């Protein structure tokens, strides 16, 4: 081992990493938000009694759970663009892939949470004259949320880390910025160490928020 550490390069390039981090956070937050909505819609389809919607949602979940995110990103950005002429901006393509895949994961989490609320709650609500939509929105979902939050927080941590994969289509997020900085300075260890630490710190931050939410919900 005759590697000499030069963390000093960070002094020049930290602004690159900061810009990358900003894009990582931006992509992650938008993807999380979209994934929440996609997951809710797919899980409601999955739990409906309408055959077409059930088949659609099951297919959705199986397809987007089965396709590796890496493959999905390349397929959408390069493959689909060649066939259909639809050219997404790299950031848009990344957000679409992240939110569609994690939406599929979330759909299954939601479904489990919703099904964990007892049948009697639906029946009591119907008996009182609530419509199916009001029953879901006012009675069932608020109870399911408590069950859903911890696994959802885990999912978000996964999504946040998965966002590094969009570097392959040239999105200048944290991972790609550190790759560029490395190729300019030949200092892979320094940049990737710092990058890894940034991911860990933000993940810790997310899991703390999740814990706080869980605590708040359980006290209700």
């Amino acid at each position, binding site marked *: 081992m005759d590697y000499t550490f030069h963390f000093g390069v960070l002094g020049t390039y930290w602004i690159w990493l900061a810009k990358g981090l900003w894009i990582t956070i931006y992509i992650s937050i938008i993807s999380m938000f979209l994934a929440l909505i996609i997951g809710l819609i797919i899980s409601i389809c999955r739990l409906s009694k309408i055959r077409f919607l059930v088949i659609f949602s099951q297919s959705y979940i199986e397809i987007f759970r089965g396709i590796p995110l890496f493959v999905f990103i390349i397929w959408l950005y390069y493959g689909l663009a060649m066939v259909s002429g639809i050219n997404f901006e790299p950031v848009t393509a990344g957000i679409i892939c992240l939110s569609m895949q994690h939406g599929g994961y979330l759909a299954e989490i939601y479904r489990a949470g919703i099904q964990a609320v007892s049948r009697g709650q639906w029946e*009591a609500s119907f008996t*009182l*004259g609530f419509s199916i939509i009001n029953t879901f929105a006012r009675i069932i979902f608020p109870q399911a949320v408590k069950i859903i939050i911890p696994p959802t927080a885990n999912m978000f941590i996964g999504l946040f880390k998965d966002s590094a994969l969009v570097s392959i289509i040239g999105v200048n997020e944290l991972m790609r910025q550190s790759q560029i900085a490395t190729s300019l300075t030949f200092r892979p260890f320094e940049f990737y160490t710092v990058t890894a630490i940034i991911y860990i710190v933000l993940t810790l931050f997310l899991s703390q928020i999740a814990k706080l939410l869980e605590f708040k919900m359980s006290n209700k």
Partner: protein
Amino acid sequence: MDKNIVKVQKVNKYFSEILVLNDVSLKIQRSNVVVICGPSGCGKSTLLRCINGLEGLSSGDIIINDKSILDKNNLRAIRLELGMVFQQFNLFPHKTVLENIILSPIINIGVNKDEAIVNGRKLLERVGILQKENDFPSSLSGGQQQRVAIARGLAMQPKIMMFDEPTSALDPEMIKEVLDVMIELAHDGMTMIVVTHEMGFAKEVADKIVMMDEGKIIEESEPNDFFGNPKNNRTKQFLSKILN
């Protein structure tokens, strides 16, 4: 106005292949209390659940206050006229006691919130539990929860109250507090359909007792006849088991 507020007409109900209600017909008059009893699995709970549309009918018809349950457009109106109390209470655990009671009148009848609260408190007082209005159901005893469930049903000002084994999940010392509320309700002239094994309650307030077995109504009579002179052998057996 038809004096029979509930008319169950030749109802059959299958769960896949199994016949759980076999040609059941029953008429219930306004302000009457009808107690339905029978061994478990005899179809008594299913009958209640058919009456408020939680289960569909395989054949036959049920008319509630001149409205057929078969017409899907009537379902909500029928449910608004029918209160239901469950064995497992089924209070909404994420709402306080008072919220449990006022939510449905506000959303489903359009009562304004202040009025709903005033009404809700009156009902809580009536079932003897006003001091718990801001508590969550999980902090209440079973008997208290069931009284809240009754108040929640009453808040909708139903024409009929149905009870599906309301005391079966309760500790013995809590059964009385629930039955007392139900007895008072009966004396106030509420039309009630009660599935229960509490024969003391049946004796005291029932206008009619219905005995079911294997999906059929096998006996239907006034309490004096039912207890004093049961016609059906199955009823005699059932009574001898349950009264000893």
